[in-house]
């Protein structure tokens, strides 16, 4: 409509431009200017993320949410809030990687560049108001992640995870793209606003549009790791370097759910068609995500299934959006956004503890590795305990508040069945989270108590930040709800 002024359009994507620019500069600089001093690379990456975050926050404060590039980019509160979450994820992940890469012998500057690029992809997904932009964002995100997953070039598992992720991701992208084509066929547009208008006026829905929606759900569901499109998750999470897993678990999920929330909010008039599918997927994801986590003996795999289960809880919020009650609708979106923040803090924190503990000769992964941790390394063990309690939804942590908000939203929009399933599986979930605590605190260590975490200050800073956020927003959820409430 209005996007004639190109400088105005560019201003709207300024955070993205900053990050892209930084990525280029860092990539060149890393090769030419400051060879081998990755500290500068990491620092500049972190700085660029923080600058971008500052720009986004300014936009949040000023409260202007205009669209750009002929309505294909929309910086509404939903986009801005998810973008903040993404940039927080990226910053925390950069801190985690700082010394982990050095210790694990993969200290290459591309890591940071890829990380920044992938976060721009996820940001693009969050602000996409158009199916093609959504697809481009998803691909930028995915390509970087495929490479990052295989970043540990000497480890077969890492290579395997990269390949698996790539092949299955390509498979899913094909469905997504096909879905976009179908939607275009059904409505004649790729722009969400136009599609919304189109279906608002439609008396009977178009089957082609419906198939398109189904395939779109598949593509996004793959990224969000929901059952039955989840099977890559444990393998990839386990194989990828832990710092990548932490980042991937956060960024991909946020990007996917930002898109899911926007797409299905747009498709609200046809809810009777897509709600049953998401309902069933939500139940399956919650039940089997938690069920399968129970028997895992590898912390990373366990957290992978836990991340699947959390995607299920978020889907409950998506289903709960569907209600004539405006308050309940907003509550559901707010709950989902709060939960995303809770999710990144506790998940990155949990993976971060593993990152912090890993040294050049040992990658912390299995339950055996963390057995008796509280006696060997009390600080990371107790931080881990916080994250486990939060993941299990025990007050006074953020995980509890998030779960509670979604639970309430579900009840208010009449999804009592989903709320009950959610409550029941949460009980089962506590088992495997507390098992980690049990392993750390009550079992005798299997290793000599001499190994010292070598991953230094940045990782600890990142993990501590997560722990503090988990507790502060758990005790004073209003601080966060003030931010997520901006969507109203």
């Amino acid at each position, binding site marked *: 409509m209005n996007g004639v002024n190109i400088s105005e359009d560019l201003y709207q994507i300024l955070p993205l431009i900053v990050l892209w620019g930084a990525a280029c500069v860092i990539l060149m600089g890393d090769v030419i200017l400051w060879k081998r001093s990755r500290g500068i690379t990491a620092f500049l990456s972190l700085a660029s993320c923080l600058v971008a975050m500052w720009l986004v926050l300014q936009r949040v404060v000023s409260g202007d949410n205009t669209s750009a590039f002929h309505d294909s980019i929309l910086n509404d509160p939903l986009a801005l809030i998810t973008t903040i979450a993404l940039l927080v994820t990226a910053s925390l992940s950069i801190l985690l990687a700082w010394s982990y890469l050095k210790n694990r012998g993969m200290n290459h500057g591309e890591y940071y560049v890829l990380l920044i690029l992938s976060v721009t992809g996820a940001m693009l997904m969050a602000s996409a108001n158009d199916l093609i932009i959504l697809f481009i964002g998803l691909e930028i995100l995915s390509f970087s992640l495929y490479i990052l997953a295989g970043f540990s070039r000497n480890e077969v598992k890492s290579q395997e995870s990269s390949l*698996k992720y790539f*092949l*299955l991701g390509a*498979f*899913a992208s094909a*469905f997504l793209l096909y879905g976009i084509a179908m939607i275009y066929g059904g409505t004649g547009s790729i722009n969400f606003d136009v599609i919304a208008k189109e279906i608002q006026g439609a008396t009977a*829905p178009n*089957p082609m549009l*419906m*198939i398109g*929606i*189904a*395939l779109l*759900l*598949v593509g996004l569901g*793959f990224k969000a790791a929901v*059952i*039955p*499109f989840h*099977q*890559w998750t*444990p*393998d990839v999470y386990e194989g990828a370097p832990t710092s990548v897993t932490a980042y991937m678990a956060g960024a991909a999920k946020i990007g996917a759910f930002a898109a899911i929330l926007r797409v299905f909010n747009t498709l609200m008039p046809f809810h*009777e*068609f*897509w709600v*049953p*599918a998401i309902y*069933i*997927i939500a139940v399956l994801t919650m039940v*089997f995500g938690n*069920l*399968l*986590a*129970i*028997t895992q003996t590898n912390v990373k795999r366990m957290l992978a299934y836990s991340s699947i289960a959390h995607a299920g809880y978020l889907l409950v919020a998506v289903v709960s959006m569907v209600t004539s009650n405006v308050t309940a609708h907003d509550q559901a979106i707010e709950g989902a956004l709060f939960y995303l923040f809770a999710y990144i803090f506790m998940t990155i924190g949990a993976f971060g503890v593993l990152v912090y503990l890993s040294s050049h000769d040992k990658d912390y992964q299995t339950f055996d590795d963390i057995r008796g941790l509280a006696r060997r390394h009390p600080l990371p063990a107790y931080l881990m305990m916080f994250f486990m309690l939060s993941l299990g939804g025990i007050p006074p942590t953020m995980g509890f508040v998030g779960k509670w908000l979604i639970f309430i939203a579900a009840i208010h929009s009449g999804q009592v069945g989903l709320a009950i399933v959610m409550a029941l599986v949460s009980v*089962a979930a506590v*088992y495997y989270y507390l098992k980690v605590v049990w392993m750390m605190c009550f079992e005798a260590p299997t290793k000599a108590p001499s190994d010292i975490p070598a991953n230094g200050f940045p990782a600890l800073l990142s993990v501590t930040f997560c722990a503090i956020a988990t507790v502060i927003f758990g005790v004073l959820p209003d601080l966060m709800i003030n931010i997520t409430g901006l969507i109203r």
Partner: protein
Amino acid sequence: MSLVWLIPGLPLIGFLFHAFLGKSIVKSMGDANGKKTIGAIATGVVFASLLISVMVFMDLMKLAPMDQRQYVSLLPGGARIPWISIGSLHVYYMGIIDPLSLLMCFIVTGVGGVIHLYATGYMADDKDYPRFFTYFNLFIFFMLMLVLSENILLMFVGWEGVGLCSYLLISFWFEDVENSKAGNKAFIVNRIGDLGFSIGVMTIFAVFGTLSFYTPQGTGFLDMAAKGITPHGMLSVGAATLIALLLFMGACGKSAQFPLYVWLPDAMAGPTPVSALIHAATMVTAGVVMITRVSPLIVHSPIAMMVIACVGVFTAFYAATIAMTQNDIKKVLAYSTVSQLGYMFLGCGVGAFAAGMFHVTTHAFFKGLLFLGAGSVIHAMSGEQDMRKMGGLKDRIPVTFWTMVCAWLAISGIPPFAGFWSKDEILGSATGFPQYGMALYAVGMFTALMTAFYMTRLMMKTFWTKPRYKDEELGAHSSHGSDDSHSHDAKHHGVHESPPSMLISLVILAILSVIGGLVGIPGHNLFDKFLAPSVAPYPLKDGMPVPIGMLLGTAFGAVGIAVCVVMYNRRQETGDLLSPKEKASNALYKGSLNLWYVDAAYYKFFVTEGGKVAEFIWQGIDRALIDGIVNFVAGLLGFLSELFRRFQTGYIRAYAFMMLAGVVAVVISVLWPFLRHLHI
């Protein structure tokens, strides 16, 4: 008035101070100086509270009687922050300043301060000195919360808090398992009463929709009860009876009334200042205070009043029968306390709430003094508590003796000592009680006779009869798990008078025991007039004329004393009325000595048999049934998890196939509404 928050605030500060710094002070300042500092601070804060209470009292007395109910915040600076705010339930940290709460403030901080002073001497040799005063100050704080509270829930906090301190102090010397058991017994028996109390609180909320006693707007539940209304209409007798009896159940636990009295005698395992302060002067009277506080509600239920009066008078009589034969000096006083508390409830039960509170006041003086005196005797005897091994202490510890005499005459009801006036007022009121007033009076009067007898017995055995010990033996065997386990050094061998800090306390309380009752002389009863704004008026019919009542009361007391003196004078040598052979054959004596086998029966029925029930619930229901279900579910989940794990083959083709199946399912699900339409 703006200083009211300091009344409980100062002891709380004292508590925090001792709790966090007490040990390091003793360490850094040296044992003697450190203990002196702690003792001075602990005693100082209590007396400072007393001083503020006096100032508040001055302020209050300037007001007209109908204005003598002030609402004040118990938070610093008069802040009004809600403690609980849920739905229609709003509870604030508010206090009520009225004659009743101020009277109790005086008793708690006044008598409490004196006993603190005493304890600085009594506990001087104890290694856990800071811990003792930590608990002691905490007790004062909770007791003041209890009496000052504006609502029954905050009162309950104080109620439970003093219970906690009681427990901690009874088992103060926890190395001896008997002391810990006594603490547990007190705590558990009180729990039974507290169950009634807490259900009573909930019933009050259900009936009145508020927990505040009084509010400035007149919406407190006592405001309503005084008018005989509830928010939903008239206050029914049934509701009033239910609430009154539930609250009285709590009072029975805290104030050691039949059948929940069994913990109080065992509570004497604590240090003697504890027995004096908590288990004689203040905490055990909390039940009377609470019943008096809710008196506007109580008077609506004749049944509840009758129950309170009967339980009270029966407990008074019953405990007196046991006190007749006990040999442990503190046990005698303990049963005497139970008995005197019975009198107080008799007063409340017959509607003479002010008289009940009067007896609370005088009892705090003379019973506190008796315990402190007993502590001094025990101190003098180097830890001996058995009166059979005492005697002839009259001239050896004269200050203790003479102060004890004051208390003895006071409790025996000899005018003009304090106890006479209050006991007389209660019994006089009983005669005016419409139902069975004379019967209540008769039992009460006979109990007064027994009281005079057993107290004289205590005095005879301790002070007048011939010594039944040798000086050089004292202190050699030190303590045997009983009270007063502090170590005695060489100079303490033999009978010795107590240090000045203890004697000052004795003298102060002795003076109060002598003159304390003069504020309630019939005809010029300043006490009743003072308390009138706080208690519900209850019309009693004309009972026995006051002069006759006073005469009879004095006569009964005098007869009790005389009989006892005569009898013991004949047994100067042994100090025992019955020979061992008579003791073995006398059923009454054996019954009384063995506490009428009630404690044994409780033990058999509740601990042994109840333990079997608990055992069954644990093994049969909890372990087999509930754990069985839980373990079954857990096992099932584990099995399922193991089963579905097999789908995670690691092969991309399998994953892709699963995805494809998912795609088909999702597409079908989305198209399902169409398909349905097509077929129809």
